[in-house]
């Protein structure tokens, strides 16, 4: 005979004001199998916990029903209390009489009746609950970081300095990401490369970091503590051990200065043998197999000049891609963002004039390592502009494009306005067209004020279009501060484009089973309390892949993600929640439907036994296979059909 104890919580007055807890407790004590029922004001408090523990001992209970708030709130708490008292934690059943009863109803009499039904059915389930034991899993104390921008760099360094081995995978030939393209950073005007390159060098030289540049993750299997990752290393056509980064190959390349440089946002040129930028890490050249004459046409004059020029013999044209495998305990996704194509806001005519550029292109113009060596020149005629006009929120906060705020556009504009004033002098007209100016960070508002004081013409309103007229650009703008329509004739227009999820985010999210939020960025497990966790245990997100962010926020988040990952990596083994699926081997026909529908790849077919099996480490207990199984062979532990039907019978 089972011995169940029922504990009714008042939750202050949250439950007590709409449910007669005294009557409910009296009722519960009469139920079949119940040996004691007690009530208390706050069951989740220390006193409440002691009450449960002492009652368990006094009445020798072997099962507990707690009538309280949602199991999402305190199931974990009460499982722990029961365990401390000597009852198997999986023999605890929560009856939610707050969210599903007292909060939902106003008639006390009826709500009390409903609470009785709920408790009765919970008792019937408690009577058939099996004692379960969590299994354990060994943790591999290594991490995979995907993305080598500032987020990935910071996370890798933090974890590596904590003593964990880190595998940092970067898709491009060099790490650095968008931050490497920037000239200065707001609001302190620190030189972006000056603060980034030391970190990049640290990554390159850190004993605990394996840098896999020019590589992509192709598959991820396993679960928290034990993932197996396959990584495709794209051929560089350069032997990285021999390459000294001297640049002779790039100087010799027949296509030198004939291919648009991605790093310079198409404002400068490179060759087919190239290094993306001078401070690249690793400092190794790469041959662009989509452009190289020898690799695309099989012929490069009499012989490939790069190969001839390389004294080290580092050029290998028959280098093949390589798939490598790594085993890790945690994964941090830091894949960054894409800049919206400004052509999607056609009225601003990005493709109509070379003098209409984006903030990132302007960044390359301002940068001393950029195509103009830091001189601000109009792309159309290489002359100094007499007037530059910024248009904010191009595609941002726009129901037809990206509904969100890019969170960096305002400050980027102010920073560039400041630098342009510094570089171009007092006589140049600088105009800014904005709607709301958001300068929310530390020191940002002060910076905004400084820029206002530098003769910046700030118009509140957006132009409807930018017209390209012979050698200048014309903008009509209605300024809401003066209620006047102004005509601006300007030399250059800088568009501040929206920040978007990476183009391959959906594909990538399927690879990792990550959830996306409505805007298409990766969704965090909780917007406030679990901002770097995902819904997949052991996978964390950092930086702009989660949503637009500036460098400050990205670095903070990267540190947070590293710390969350370290929580897992620092444990020798992890407990796995036993509330997962299992297979009744006598009933399973091996049809394989569960294998197909399982979104976590936790199901496999045992060909020898001709039955389906569950990988305990992968199963999250979603219940998909239980619903799908045509022969009732899939069973969810402690949520069996019999248990659930008993509960229903008691409610009906």
């Amino acid at each position, binding site marked *: 005979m089972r011995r169940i104890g029922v504990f009714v919580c008042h939750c202050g007055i949250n439950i007590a004001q709409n449910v007669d807890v005294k009557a409910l407790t009296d009722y519960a004590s009469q139920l079949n199998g119940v040996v004691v029922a007690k009530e208390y004001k706050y069951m989740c408090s220390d006193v409440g916990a002691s009450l449960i523990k002492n009652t368990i001992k006094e009445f020798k209970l072997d099962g507990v029903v707690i009538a309280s708030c949602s199991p999402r709130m305190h199931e974990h708490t009460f499982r722990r209390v029961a365990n401390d008292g000597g009852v198997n934690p999986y023999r605890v059943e929560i009856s939610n009489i707050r969210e599903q009863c007292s909060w939902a109803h106003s008639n006390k009499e009826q709500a009390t009746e409903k609470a009785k039904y709920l408790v009765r059915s919970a008792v019937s389930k408690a009577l058939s609950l099996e004692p379960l034991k969590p299994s354990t899993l060994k943790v591999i104390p290594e991490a995979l970081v995907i993305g080598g921008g500032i987020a990935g760099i910071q996370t890798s360094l933090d974890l590596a300095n904590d003593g964990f081995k880190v595998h940092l995978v970067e898709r491009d030939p060099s790490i650095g990401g968008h931050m490497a393209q920037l000239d200065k950073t707001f609001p302190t005007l620190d030189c972006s490369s000056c603060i980034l390159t030391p970190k990049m060098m640290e990554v390159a030289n850190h004993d605990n970091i394996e840098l896999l540049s020019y590589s992509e993750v192709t598959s991820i299997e396993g679960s928290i503590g034990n993932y197996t990752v396959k990584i495709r290393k794209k051929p560089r056509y350069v032997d990285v051990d021999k390459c000294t980064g001297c640049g002779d190959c790039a100087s010799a390349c027949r296509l030198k200065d004939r291919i648009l440089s991605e790093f310079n946002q198409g404002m400068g040129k490179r060759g087919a043998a190239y290094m993306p930028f001078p401070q690249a890490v690793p400092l190794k050249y790469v041959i662009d197999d989509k452009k190289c004459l020898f690799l695309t046409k099989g012929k490069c004059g009499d012989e490939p000049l790069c190969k001839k020029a390389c004294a080290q013999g580092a050029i290998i044209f028959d280098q093949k891609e390589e798939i490598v495998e790594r085993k890790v305990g945690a994964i941090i996704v830091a894949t960054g963002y894409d800049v919206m194509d400004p052509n999607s806001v056609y009225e601003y005519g990005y493709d109509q004039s070379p003098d209409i550029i984006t903030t990132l292109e302007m960044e390359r113009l301002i940068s001393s390592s950029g195509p103009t060596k830091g001189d601000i020149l109009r792309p159309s005629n290489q002359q100094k502009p*007499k*007037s530059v006009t910024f248009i904010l929120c191009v595609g941002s906060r726009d129901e037809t494009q990206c509904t969100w705020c890019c969170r960096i556009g305002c400050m980027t504009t102010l920073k560039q306005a400041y630098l342009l004033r510094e570089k171009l002098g007092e006589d140049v*007209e600088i*105009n800014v067209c904005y709607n709301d*100016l958001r300068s929310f960070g530390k020191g940002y508002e002060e910076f905004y*004020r400084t820029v*206002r*004081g530098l*003769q*910046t*013409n*700030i118009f*509140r309103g957006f132009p409807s279009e930018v017209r390209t007229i012979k050698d*200048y650009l014309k903008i*009509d703008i209605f*300024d809401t*501060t*003066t*209620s*006047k*329509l*102004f*005509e*601006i*004739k*300007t*030399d250059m227009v800088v568009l501040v484009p929206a920040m978007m999820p990476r183009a391959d985010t959906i594909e990538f999210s399927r690879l990792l089973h990550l959830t996306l939020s409505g805007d298409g960025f990766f969704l965090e497990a909780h917007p406030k309390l679990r901002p770097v966790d995902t819904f997949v245990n052991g996978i964390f997100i950092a930086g702009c892949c989660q949503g637009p962010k500036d460098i400050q926020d990205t670095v903070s988040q990267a540190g947070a993600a590293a710390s969350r990952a370290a929580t897992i990596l620092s444990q020798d083994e992890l407990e796995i929640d036993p509330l997962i699926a299992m297979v009744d081997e006598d009933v399973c026909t091996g049809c394989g439907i569960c294998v197909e529908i399982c979104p976590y790849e936790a199901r496999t077919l045992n060909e020898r036994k001709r039955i389906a099996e569950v990988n305990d480490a992968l199963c999250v207990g979603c219940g998909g296979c239980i619903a799908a199984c045509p022969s009732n062979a899939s069973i969810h532990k402690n949520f069996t059909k019999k248990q659930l039907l008993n509960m229903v019978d008691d409610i009906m």
Partner: protein
Amino acid sequence: MSIIDLTSMGEPQSDLKKELNDRLTKLQDEISEYCFQCAKCTSGCEAHKLLELEPHKIVALLKRGLINELVNSDVIWTCMTCQKCRERCPQRVAPVEILFALKNMAVASGKQIPGKYTGMLQSILSMGLIQDIQQTTTRSNKILKRDELGLPPPSKPTDVAKFQAGIMKIAIEKV
């Protein structure tokens, strides 16, 4: 290149704008550029309720350099100089000072001064006050004289001719 107000085809008068901003700097007020158009000045403007003065818009036009438009407008004469806008501006811009400067510019350019101002000017020249305040009405509608409140009689220039000469000197030298 250029910015034109298409409504009036007016172009910014940068020299006048500089002159005005310099004057604000001299008075230790901030230049108009710092105004971020919160309109706190207009929300509390005593002249706005009756006379439609919008100090924030005056500052906005100054920022655009449309000074002539302001100087030629009648609305600049509605300011009661209560100083609330200067007192409460979160950016320390003083619309009231801008209005003083604009009125001076209007006078200097020979523009007709509204009639009541001439009366006030006469009053100042003759007794040093816009108005010779002798009594006041309390909230409970009681009329009280200055001496009943323990106030001394208002001080007036002892030598009116000398006072007038001083005022004229100030006006000519644009102090």
